[in-house]
């Protein structure tokens, strides 16, 4: 198959905040919902400093593992789950989504959400996965059987699996934590896929 040459990516730059974020962008479900879970973390650069001008996007299946194809992300009605959210990092480099735990996309598969990161200094967006950890949506068996995770050494594998912390608020208080390290020690495993040109 011969692909048409793609339009190259360019950086999101520093001035996207009036265009890309919207009210309610990071709340895929209302924070008060009984089954709401927080997914949060810090975006860091190669010096370990927080990145205050990044944009993180989250795309995930529903609780039943099915892909959602419903409009309404940009004008949330508080009831319709669209599976898509967006969060600009704050001055401390933090992002925070309120969502639900996605189900597995196939029998025995390890559930994950897809994340993409944009920032000034990144010429092209970065893609990664955030797997659900044991105890909060994931199982040791499914994580051990995942083909992507199995192909990585343990140190790098850990960058793809969320941790559980107690910053969730609410009754249980548990939250998913996933720092996104652009470069250097602890660098997140960034992904590329078939049919994407060099550089992902």
């Amino acid at each position, binding site marked *: 198959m011969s692909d048409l040459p793609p339009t190259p990516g*360019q950086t999101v730059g520093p001035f996207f905040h009036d265009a890309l974020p919207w009210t309610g962008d990071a709340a895929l479900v209302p924070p008060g919902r009984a089954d709401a879970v927080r997914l949060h973390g810090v975006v860091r650069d190669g010096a370990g400093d927080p990145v205050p001008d990044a944009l993180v996007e989250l795309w995930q299946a529903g609780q039943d593992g099915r892909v959602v194809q419903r409009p309404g992300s940009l004008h949330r009605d508080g009831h319709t789950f669209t599976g898509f959210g967006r969060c600009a990092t704050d001055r401390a480099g933090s992002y925070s989504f309120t969502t639900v735990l996605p189900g597995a996309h196939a029998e025995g598969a390890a559930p994950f959400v897809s994340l993409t990161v944009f*920032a000034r200094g990144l010429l092209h967006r970065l893609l990664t996965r955030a797997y659900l950890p044991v105890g909060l949506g994931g199982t040791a068996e499914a994580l051990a059987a995942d083909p992507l995770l199995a192909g990585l050494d343990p140190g790098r594998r850990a960058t793809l699996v969320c941790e559980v912390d107690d910053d969730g608020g609410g009754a249980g208080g548990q939250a998913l934590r996933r720092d996104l390290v652009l470069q250097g020690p602890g660098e997140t495993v960034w992904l590329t896929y078939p049919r994407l040109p060099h550089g992902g």
Partner: protein
Amino acid sequence: MTETTQAEISAEIEAEAQAYAARPAGAPAETTTRRGWGAYRSSVLRVPSNDPHPVDPEGVELWAPCFGQRDVDPLEADLTIQGRGEPLGERIVVTGRVLDGDGRPVRGQLVEVWQANASGRYVHQRDQHPAPLDPHFTGTGRCLTDDDGTYRFTTVKPGPYPWRNHRNAWRPAHVHFSLFGTDFTQRLVTQMYFPGDPLMGLDPIATAVVDPAARARMVATYDHDLTEPEWATGYRWDVVLTGSHRTPREDDLAAALGEEA
């Protein structure tokens, strides 16, 4: 410490261009942006050290978010009607098609744009360029592609503006575009440039696309057939995303979404 000059940045850009032109015969052409590009100083601590890890797409990665009439007001495609009067500058129409790597139109999908005003100033609070803000121009817009994959915006031509990558650095005039395909792996944020811009070859961001043909794919074409009498000049710019990983079929959709959708 003395500031880096444009001459030094241009020398870095030229060295990369010459090395690329002298690549071995038969070496494939580069089709996209370099990941690491030292002339763009902000990239030095932000571009990953490791090459991206190859994986086959699964589950949600094979699909893109869905947007519809609920999400976007058709009036959002006109950036010249957001104030109480006409914005300053050259009114332009920018239109084109969003295609996937197989040439299929990307239908009903979200396109977002943002840009500086005609003076080269963003509304953004961190833009301190002492050029005038325009009370009638926010520089942001959205639309959905139609059944032919076509998007269309009415706006004004943005001005070039200075930035602090090096001494006397100026960005060529551009409109930022954010695009979705049918797979999340096709997600693209890029910039559309204007034909004949003398700043293009001096710019560390545009020149991070080293291959001249690839860089040209970021430049719109002036199209007099789009120009409207007594109203606006017209530019055409098609966007090609990477290839989809699935062949869209109705039963495929039904299987993935379940009955409820």
